[in-house]
C-alpha cells in the first residue's frame, strides 16, 4: 500500500550556471536565466510505502509525517530565494527542479526514521517511496 500526502510551498530561483558565459546561460535556460530570478507555487507529493496498522488503520499518523516534512523541507524552502538562501544552491549549483527534487529527497532520506521502527504516534514507520515535485501544473518531476 502506498500513501501520498501533498504539500505546497512558494519560492524563487534563477537558473544560471556561473561556470558558463552569459550567452550560454541565456541559450540553455532562456528567460529562467534573467538576473533577478522568478518564483513558483511548488506542489510536493511525498509517498510512503508500508502496511496499515491493524489497530489504528493508519500507515502513518498524518501529524507525524507532516511535522517531518515541515521540519526537513517546507521550513527550508518556504518563501525563500533558493540561490541565495538554501545551502545546497548558494555555491552556484543550479536550482533546476530536477536538482530541487533530488535535494528534497536527500533531506528526507537523511532524517527518515528506520522503516518498521516506532515514530511519534506511528507504530511502524513506512519507507519513503517517492517524491513528486510540481514546478507548475505542467512541469512535474519524480524521484
Amino acid at each position, binding site marked *: *500500500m*502506498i*500513501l*501520498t*500526502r*501533498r*504539500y505546497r510551498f512558494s519560492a524563487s530561483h534563477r537558473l544560471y550556471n556561473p561556470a558558463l558565459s552569459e550567452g550560454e546561460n541565456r541559450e540553455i535556460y532562456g528567460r529562467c536565466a534573467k538576473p533577478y530570478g522568478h518564483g513558483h507555487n511548488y506542489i510536493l507529493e511525498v509517498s510512503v510505502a508500508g*502496511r*496499515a496498522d*491493524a*489497530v*489504528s*488503520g*493508519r*500507515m502513518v*499518523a*498524518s*501529524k507525524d509525517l507532516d511535522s517531518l516534512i515541515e521540519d526537513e523541507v517546507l521550513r527550508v524552502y518556504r518563501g525563500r530565494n533558493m540561490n541565495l538562501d538554501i545551502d545546497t544552491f548558494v555555491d552556484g549549483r543550479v536550482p533546476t527542479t530536477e536538482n530541487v527534487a533530488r535535494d528534497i529527497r536527500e533531506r528526507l532520506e537523511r532524517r527518515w526514521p528506520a522503516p518498521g521502527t516506532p515514530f511519534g*504516534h506511528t507504530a511502524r514507520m513506512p519507507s519513503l517511496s517517492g517524491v513528486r515535485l510540481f514546478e507548475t501544473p505542467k512541469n512535474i518531476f519524480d524521484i
Partner: protein
Amino acid sequence: MRITRRVDFSASHLCAIPSLSQEENEAIYGDGANPHGHGHNYVLEVTLEGEPDPVTGMIFDLKELKTILESEVLEAMDHRYLNMEVPPFDHVVPTVENVSREIWRRLWPKLNFSHARLWRVRLYETEDLFVDYSGEES
C-alpha cells in the same frame, strides 16, 4: 495496457479507536477524531489491466465498469456515515487506508477475468491525501 475510471462519492466518518481516550485519538487522527464525525468528497480511481479485445478494441466495457462501481461502491458508501452504515466500519476504523482496502475487497470478485482484471484502487480522501492499493497483504 491499463484503463482508469474515476468516480466520486461523499461520505462521513469518524476515526477513533474506542479503547483510547479522546486525547490519544486526536494525537493519532487529528481533527478526524471529532466525536460526531466529519465528511469528505472522496474521489476513487479504479484501474484495470488487460489487453484490448481484437474485435471490440476494448479492454473492458466502461459502461459495465460504471455499473459495477455504482452497485458495489457508490450504493454502499455514497451519502453514508461509514461507521454506522457500512460494514466492516462498525468495528474497523474507516481511515483512507482501510476504505481503499475495503473497496478493493468489494471490487476484486467482480473485476477478475482472464482478459482484464483490477490492477489498482486509488482513493483520494482530499486532494492532499490519497492511498494506492493493489491487493497486497495489509
